[in-house]
């Protein structure tokens, strides 16, 4: 039986407050059959479907997590406003859809090639907008603090402040309610894996995310600029002695993180077309941050691994314990990893990681 946190006089139904969503101030009454399930049968039945779905969600987490991890590697700063950079990307995608003449609610009647082209265009817009927003954020919020040699706490508070500020600006411009649903490409099964259908969206998202990860990984490990990023992460003073311009490296790092968040925004809105809302970055941002810590913050490959594991684990948890437990599973997983392996699964930071 549950202990704390549940009203004892509410059998079969309970009131959950909506702290996380200021848009909805009226309490929701949710009917639930049982407080918690332990449905191993469902877990086994849905194992492959959950795995595939989890990998698709996890790819989105991973792309956003890369932004947290890159900035952490270079500045030892958790850029809490990164989730809002992601939301800016989401609105970049959404407004491009509107600009292209798509309307909420209606399914487009266009040939597949045109739809793919429109999706690509929306993705590019989101990547550019989110990338520039990230660079702008760095310049406005963090660079002045660096100039003044501000203590680390000041950066953290600024990050949280910037996060709220961007969120509220979006709310003022676009309103509190979620935007109407625009779905360009409805999911349809492309093939099956062990009897579980894989949709066209899922396979595109997983493959495209992995491709983007490989590009980012190669950039950091093989290119000259990437080597500069690693040098600043490992020893900023010595990097300067080698001729690395630290300010430029920081800018590039934010740019890459923002671009990846923009790509994630496209995949997110393809999966959850009703997801364009000003505070939509909150939960996803925390999950992506969790993914980065799970894999080992500062470690690029850790961000990918952490994202995929988190995505899959919360889907298994949803089947095993019930739908309400999805987020709980994600964060309990984080707590467990931090208890038993505080440096994350891959452990090493970008600063220490080899090649």
């Amino acid at each position, binding site marked *: 039986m549950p202990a704390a946190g549940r009203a004892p006089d509410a059998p079969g139904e309970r009131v959950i407050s909506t702290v996380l969503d200021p848009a909805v101030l009226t309490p929701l009454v949710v009917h639930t059959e049982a407080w918690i399930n332990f449905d191993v049968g469902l877990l086994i039945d849905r194992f492959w479907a959950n795995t595939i779905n989890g990998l698709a969600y996890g790819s989105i987490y991973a792309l956003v997590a890369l932004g947290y991890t890159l900035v952490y590697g270079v500045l030892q700063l958790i850029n809490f406003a990164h989730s809002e950079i992601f939301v800016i990307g989401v609105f970049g995608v959404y407004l491009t859809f509107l600009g292209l003449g798509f309307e909420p609610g209606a399914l487009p009647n266009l040939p597949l090639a045109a739809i793919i082209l429109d999706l690509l265009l929306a993705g590019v817009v989101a990547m550019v907008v989110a990338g520039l927003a990230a660079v702008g954020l760095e310049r406005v919020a963090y660079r002045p603090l660096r100039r003044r040699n501000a203590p680390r706490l000041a950066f953290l508070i600024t990050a949280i402040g910037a996060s709220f500020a961007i969120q509220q600006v979006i709310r003022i411009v676009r309103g509190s309610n979620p935007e109407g649903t625009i779905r360009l490409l409805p999911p349809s099964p492309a093939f099956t894996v062990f009897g579980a259908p894989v949709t066209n969206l899922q396979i595109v998202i997983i493959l495209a995310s992995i491709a983007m990860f490989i590009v980012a990984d190669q950039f950091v490990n093989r290119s*000259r600029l990437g*080597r*500069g990023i*690693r*040098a600043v992460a*490992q*020893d900023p*003073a*010595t*990097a*300067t*002695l*080698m*001729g*690395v*311009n*630290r300010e430029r490296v920081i800018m590039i790092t934010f740019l890459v993180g923002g671009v990846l968040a923009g790509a994630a925004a496209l995949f997110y809105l393809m999966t959850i077309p009703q997801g364009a809302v000003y505070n939509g970055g909150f939960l996803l941002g925390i999950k992506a941050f969790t993914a980065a810590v799970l894999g080992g913050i500062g470690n690029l490959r850790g961000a990918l691994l952490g994202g995929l594991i988190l995505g899959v684990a919360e889907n298994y948890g949803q089947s095993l314990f019930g739908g309400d437990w999805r987020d709980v599973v994600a964060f309990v997983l984080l707590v467990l990893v931090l208890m038993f392996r505080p440096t994350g699964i891959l452990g*090493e930071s*970008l*600063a*220490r*990681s*080899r*090649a």
Partner: protein
Amino acid sequence: MTTMLELDDVHVAYGRIQALRGISLRVEVGQIVALIGANGAGKTTTMKAISGILGLQSGSMRFEGEDLTAIRADLRVGKGISQVPEGRGIFPGMTVAENIDMGAYLRSDRRSPEFAADLERVYELFPRLAERRSQAGGTLSGGEQQMLAMGRALMARPRLLLLDEPSMGLAPQFIAQIFRVIEEINAQGTTVLLVEQNATQALGLAHEAYVMETGEVTRSGTGAELLADPTIQDAYLGVS
């Protein structure tokens, strides 16, 4: 002789702590100049001011006639000043080869024969580095890291090489090798500014030397003069 580096009345502070109180020194082209003194005398601060990691409060710094203070720290290596920092500053997560390559970060002639020759020279000076080429920098011993830091600095083709305590914490056979290499680098035409606590070795090598105490230069002269000076012997050479 032409002057390569000239510091005049340089003041540097860390917050309220005055680390340099008016340092003046000259490094002539082709020389080895040693900076000796006890811990906290300001030797490393002087090096950091020259490489631009620390800014000046006042005073002037000229390199080959040019005002060095007007040049951003990360561009000074491109001007011909390479520093091997105190503690070596090896990038622990990069391989030996990648670390060496970082020394050539600003060079754009990677495919040229000169670049290949420079790389070959580094591996010739320090054959141990060639054996460990693909090993992570953080796994090397102290002596190997010192070699790596020196090899890396040479890849920038410096005209002035700043060496901060190259013998610190090294086994005697490494110290001898490092000093031999410093002489060899100098003989091949690179000017060297050397900070050392190991004063006997440094003075034995140096054309000119400066003695620092609490942020000021208290003595200067040729290496041989200072080596023979009884007060220097008492204070720094452990001879009584």
